[in-house]
């Protein structure tokens, strides 16, 4: 996704990446980054929590329009309101993805 953002940015459209893995977006050299410490699939926050969602989007817009240097990263200081163990389980698919299944099978046979 940070690479896709780079290609769009290079084509002349300013971009900001809102991501739960901001250090990876930095490594991949995204132009503008907003970090959120949220589970995967929840870039803008908790379902139906309009206040939280608005905090994320407003920060993203501020960084998008206000960052003056390449690689600007701002992290959102909002804690995920669900206990870690529960949240960690909740975001994951019911069955492992094909690539994870393949990795697990390779590990089992090695």
């Amino acid at each position, binding site marked *: 996704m940070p690479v*896709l953002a780079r*290609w769009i940015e290079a084509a002349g459209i300013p971009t900001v990446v809102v991501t739960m893995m901001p*250090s990876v977006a930095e490594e991949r050299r995204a132009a503008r980054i907003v970090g959120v410490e949220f589970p*995967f*699939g929840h870039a*803008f926050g908790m379902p*139906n929590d309009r206040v939280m969602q608005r905090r994320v989007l407003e920060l993203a*817009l501020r960084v998008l329009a206000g960052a003056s240097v390449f690689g600007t990263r701002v992290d959102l200081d909002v804690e995920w309101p669900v206990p870690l163990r529960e949240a960690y389980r909740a975001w994951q698919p019911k069955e492992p993805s*094909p690539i994870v299944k393949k990795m697990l099978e390779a590990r089992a046979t090695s």
Partner: protein
Amino acid sequence: MIVDSYRFLPRTFRPLYEGRGPFPGEEDPVWTPFEKRLSESRIALLTSAGIYLKRSQPPFDLDGERARPDWGDPSWRSIPAVAEKGELGVGHLHINGADILADPEIALPTRLLEQLAGEGVVGGAVANHVSVMGFQERALSDWRQTTAPAIVAHLREQGADALVLAPA
């Protein structure tokens, strides 16, 4: 406060992401200045949650991914800002899409963006946002050659001044 990028990631996956550096050929900075006022700018959203319109669009090709686990459907979908929650599907084998189906705003906050446009925070929102499915083959060849140029053409056609991307 510094976000822990690996807080919700299973520990065994961390080496797949951490310390890999830039994508090959993508080392140099890319930068397009944001020159207009935000209140005069039209904003577009892009999600990689694999959202699609159930009635009029094909879902992302998950059977293809099951057959070839290193591959992910590189196509994209145009998602109308006015699409209702019940019209949207989620095709993504790497996340639990239940929360997105319950409230698509957590991945593609089209209603919220319209609200900010109504308040004058942004100038406007595009009529049609963008959705991709984020799991892709490592070289990203189809994304680079086909999908990215098509998305750029779509954003221009929509009059987008800037884009907010959110990985799933």
